[in-house]
């Protein structure tokens, strides 16, 4: 009863917002703002993500637009550059809202930039759709109008991979991480998750960004007697680690690398064999999608729109695309671009939607509770295959990983 009342009130508010002079969407389209990083640490990931959003925009517009208040409104994406710079981000989100008059916004890549963007969108009362910010702290700040459409918090990301490790009978975990927000958060999450599962964390080693030589870190990990090697760094460092493991004959029965699922990592060839990773985007992962494109349609759209892209779609693209699809549902449900109405619609849709990145479920703070990351392994011959959880697994994990000398 209460809920119905509130919905009625919100609908009324929405109607008001819509008829108010100079209100949003007055010019027959929905303008969505977001930033891309042309340079800096986030350039690659950010650009991967934007392609996802662009696929969604293209798809929506081909279908005539989003249905809002009985009308079909096309979507327009306004992209500006943030150079991976926090200062720039705050400024650009403000520009997007006040000068570009966008109706709602997609977050930039990463938690730091998203935090900066969120303070601007909160103040100017706009809805912010998050697709990549995973910092748990972001959701404890009391932001009212943010929703993580597809990205699960970093603390929960290592859960599946350590479940598998436990299942395989490993005992000791060595965690190595670069001192950057996301990898560090992942490492802390992994440490907690390992302890919860009764695994012993025998090494927790940090190194600064820009480190080039991992030979000693690897040897320390070997010396710690770990059977699970869990480095949480970006692709470049992981590539170096694998190569140096081979150069120094270092073997672990279970090696999990977050970014081993990316095409950039797999470009190194057979040295990457047997590494475990996780992803939400893979030919064997097919959720029952009820919002947006399914995986096959998505891949086709990607190839059509970005024939020249150097790499195929990756999980950033999928997260961002999924966020687009969910945002579309939210807008249609809300029938308005008013931030509070959108947020309510986002909560109402929680648990109702599944996009190609997985099922969507949020709590009051906008934190994502679902969107699981299945574990994959790079198996020779087969390539990347899903090995965990059993619901989506298509192959048995190869464990222990064969030593370099036995390959």
């Amino acid at each position, binding site marked *: 009863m209460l809920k119905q009342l509130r919905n009625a009130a919100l609908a009324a508010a929405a109607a008001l917002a819509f008829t108010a002079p100079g209100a949003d969407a007055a010019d027959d389209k929905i303008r969505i703002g977001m930033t891309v990083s042309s340079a800096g640490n986030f350039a690659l990931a950010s650009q991967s993500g934007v392609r996802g959003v662009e696929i969604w925009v293209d798809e929506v517009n081909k279908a005539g637009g989003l249905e809002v208040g009985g009308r079909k409104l096309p979507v327009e994406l306004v992209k500006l550059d943030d150079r991976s710079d926090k200062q720039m981000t705050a400024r650009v989100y403000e*520009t997007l809202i006040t000068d570009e008059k966008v109706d709602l916004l997609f977050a930039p890549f990463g938690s*730091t930039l998203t*935090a900066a963007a969120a*303070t601007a969108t909160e103040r100017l009362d706009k809805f912010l759709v998050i697709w990549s910010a995973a910092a748990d702290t972001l959701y404890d700040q009391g932001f009212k109008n943010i929703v993580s459409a597809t990205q699960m918090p970093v603390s929960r990301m290592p859960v599946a991979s350590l479940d598998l490790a436990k299942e395989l009978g490993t005992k000791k975990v060595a965690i190595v991480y670069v001192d950057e927000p996301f990898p560090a958060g992942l490492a802390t999450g992994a440490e907690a998750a390992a302890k919860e599962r009764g695994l012993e964390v025998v090494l927790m080693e940090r190194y600064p960004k820009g480190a080039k030589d991992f030979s000693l870190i690897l040897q320390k990990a070997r010396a710690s007697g770990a059977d699970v090697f869990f480095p949480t760094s970006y692709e470049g460092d992981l590539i170096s680690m694998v190569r140096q493991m081979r150069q120094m004959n270092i073997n672990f029965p279970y090696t999990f690398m977050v970014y081993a699922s990316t095409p950039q990592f797999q470009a190194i060839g057979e040295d990457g064999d047997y590494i475990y990773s996780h992803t939400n985007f893979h030919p064997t992962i097919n959720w029952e999608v009820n919002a947006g494109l399914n995986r096959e349609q998505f891949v086709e759209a990607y190839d059509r729109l970005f024939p020249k892209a150097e790499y195929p779609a990756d999980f950033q693209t999928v997260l961002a695309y999924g966020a687009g699809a969910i945002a579309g549902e939210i807008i249609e449900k809300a029938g308005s671009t008013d931030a509070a109405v959108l947020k309510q619609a986002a909560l109402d849709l929680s648990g109702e939607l599944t996009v190609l990145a997985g099922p969507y479920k949020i709590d009051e703070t906008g934190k994502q509770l679902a969107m699981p990351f299945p574990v994959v392994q790079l198996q020779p011959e087969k390539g990347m295959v899903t090995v965990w959880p059993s619901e989506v697994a298509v192959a048995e994990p190869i464990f222990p990983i064969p030593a370099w000398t036995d390959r």
Partner: protein
Amino acid sequence: MASSLGGVAAPAEGRSGDARVGRIRISLWIVVALGVVLPLLAAPALTENLSFSFYLMLWIILCTSFNLVAGFTGYMPFGYVAFYGVGAYATGVLHKTYGLPMPGALVCAALAGAAVSLLLAPTLRLKGVYFGIVSLALAVIFRLVVSMLPEDITGGSMGLILARANDPQTTYYVTVAVLAACLAAAGWLAFSRTGVALRAVRDDADAAAIVGIDVTRTRLKAWVLAATFPAVVGGLEAWYTNAIDPEASFNILVTAKVIVYSMAGGLGTLLGPVLGAGALYGIDHLIWQKFPVLNLMFLGIIIMVMILVFPRGLVGSFAQRFPLLRRYIP
């Protein structure tokens, strides 16, 4: 008095003329300062997009205070961003972790900046590139130390989010006040005898000592002042964006831009850094809109061109070209 000197006193018209020059110079600076501060004070009433003006103020403050050390004493602190980062972290940690209200946190940030500058004072013994390299190294060290502090204090590499303090309107007006204070302090320093002493030390430290200037103390004054403002600005920026992390707070690009902006305007004059910051920040903004991918490249090219072609900046080149007018330039 003139008679006792045997008729060698200044001609009366020269004396009054020179006194007028001094007055005009000070008035000009007051006009410039008001011309900068007043429109910025009015800006919130005209537009909702505060960020452009906020960062304009940020760069003017940073460049003006950088000028106090680079322009007036001749040191090139490549690690200038350290003060900014320390201020940001002092503000963030005191406010978020220890619950100090924002004004208190900002005052402490200023004190932290001053304290760090005293801690680093021994580096002033070094000269030229040695000073530059050490300064840069210290900025990296500060960043490493901050990211190694316990996570429950500084938030580790994730940094801190201060969203609860979000109040850009107030932040903006406080920044206007800090800007006014910074311009006033720079003016006071430049027109006071300390300003003459500073430039004397910059031009030739030995000669300055010979004429009775306490070189170490004079440098220290400028150094502390030049460190306090960026620390406050770091705090203000943390307050404004509500997010700090080691990467952004100790980003070497901050130093790069401060150097470029103030050198483009002309180090050693009050007007230069203000002009440089205003002009290049504006250009940077345009470049970024038109050529998003190559903006950094332009920044780099501008640095090279500035130093090779106009090493004294806009104001400095103007002064060289028009020697008669330069006495009026603040």
